[in-house]
């Protein structure tokens, strides 16, 4: 039952986006997010939507699947939109009911906010759809490495993520087994109110934690006997390297960001 949970949402493939270096994808996503906040005209939003659509098309991901990644947070998007609609200051009233009123400005602002959130999520989900968690970890380690000088433990973070990815399925299996064992002894995990249920989780969590600590210790000993001594002097089997497609992708996303910046401030600059 629990073992059916899949980790991450990697969708294997061999498209242009899949083949990009993970660092390229992470950085491009960040640049795109910055670009989202530069947009303030319908044209700019149109360009952003067009770019996202293009990337999804190039990545050959099923469109329905990408859209589904919005599902868990559509309620947040809706609330954001409604709050902006009702609270934005404005003159042109479109609709009133008792003390509530919707202004045209509010309507526009609400739509903008919702659009920003949707674009942000869609674009970053393309990153997780096209990059396996392991490769993503490598990318994060490499990107954080320059910050080691100021105390960012890049290697340790990456090693923690690697081990977490390795052990999540193992611990899920174990949770399942303990749950069955405790159910056989009369434990009840599925009825009662929230508080009772939380309390009933105790006979599950205690053995799970004990075993996780034991595993951690054994793993540490096994790692030591395999000559692990931290990130110092360590090499990697797969060294990441930028290829020409990475430069193409960087070019495209930087062009987008610069274009939007010009759209936003260019008119002002001309007026000067």
């Amino acid at each position: 039952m629990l073992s059916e949970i899949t980790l991450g949402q990697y969708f294997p493939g061999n498209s242009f986006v899949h083949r990009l270096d993970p660092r390229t994808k992470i950085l491009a996503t960040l640049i795109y997010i910055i670009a989202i906040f530069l947009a303030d005209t319908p044209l700019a939003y149109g360009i952003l939507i067009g770019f996202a659509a293009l990337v999804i098309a190039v990545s050959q991901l099923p469109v329905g699947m990408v859209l589904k990644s919005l599902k868990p947070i559509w309620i947040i998007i809706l609330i954001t939109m409604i709050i902006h609609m009702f609270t934005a200051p404005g003159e042109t009233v479109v609709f009133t009911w008792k003390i509530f009123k919707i202004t045209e400005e509010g309507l526009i602002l609400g739509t903008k906010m919702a659009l920003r959130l949707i674009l942000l999520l869609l674009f970053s989900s393309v990153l997780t759809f096209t990059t396996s968690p392991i490769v993503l970890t490598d990318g994060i380690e490499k990107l954080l490495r320059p910050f080691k000088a100021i105390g960012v433990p890049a290697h340790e973070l990456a090693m923690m993520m690697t081990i977490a990815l390795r052990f999540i399925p193992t611990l899920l299996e174990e949770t399942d087994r303990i749950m069955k064992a405790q159910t056989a002894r009369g434990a009840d995990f599925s009825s009662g109110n929230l508080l009772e249920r939380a309390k009933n989780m105790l006979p599950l969590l205690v053995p799970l934690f004990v075993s996780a600590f034991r595993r951690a210790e054994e793993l540490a000993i096994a790692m030591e006997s395999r000559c692990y001594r931290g990130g110092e002097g360590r090499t990697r089997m797969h060294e990441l390297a930028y290829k020409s497609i990475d430069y193409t992708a960087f070019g495209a996303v930087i062009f987008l960001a610069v274009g939007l910046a010009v759209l936003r401030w260019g008119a002002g600059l001309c007026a000067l």
Partner: protein
Amino acid sequence: MISIKGLKHYYTDADGKEVKALDGIDLDIKKGEFVAIIGANGSGKSTLARHLNALLLPTEGTCTVGGLDTVEEANMWDIRQQVGMVFQNPDNQIVAAIVEEDVAFGPENIGVPSEEIRPRVEKALAAVGMTDYAKHAPHLLSGGQKQRVAIAGLMALEPDCIVLDEPTAMLDPQGRKEIVATVKSLNKDKGITIVYITHYMTEALAADRVVVMEKGHIRFMGTPKEVFSRVDELEKLGLEAPLAAKVASELRKSGIKLPKDIITDEELAQALCQ
């Protein structure tokens, strides 16, 4: 290859009592030898194993590996590269979420150049017959396969010796067969020195030499034939000789003339049919 002289290991347990886990061990292991260590629970066999790659250090006495003393901290990583260790729980020694990444973990740690790692990984996986599983996720493998991946992870470090600490204790019979076969082939084909700790006597039959431990001492050692024909002594130490040896011993006691060195089912069958 490995030379242990007057090795003692004492530690203080939770109640503050001093425990003599190892109390004067002398043992020499030659290069290319296959040594099995047997003994009841608490006999000190795991403690002994952990001295072989400097996971534990002697309280008294010395343990040298390839001429390097394990007490010297500067030798530690060389020793760990020379002597690999496989543990009981197959789940808790695999680090990465993909088999080949895990096998690459050791060479990455000792700083093998990137382009040399892949051939090492491929060789190591081939040596344990897991080439087809290079891209698999370890949690989907069987116990025996996981242990073979763990052995491959050590082979990628190109060690001279592999110590296996009850590697089959958590495996099903199929997995046990796989591990014994793998270990035998590494010993015969690759010349790897094997120290195999087990409490399955039948697994110890494959060894060149069997060491019997009890309460931190080596009680006796010899070839499997020498050791397992001493059925009564083994029983006193809480160990059970292989079934064939026991049957042969009982038959001898009841007056049937049988050779003294019967330890396998085949030998027993042959002797009885003559």
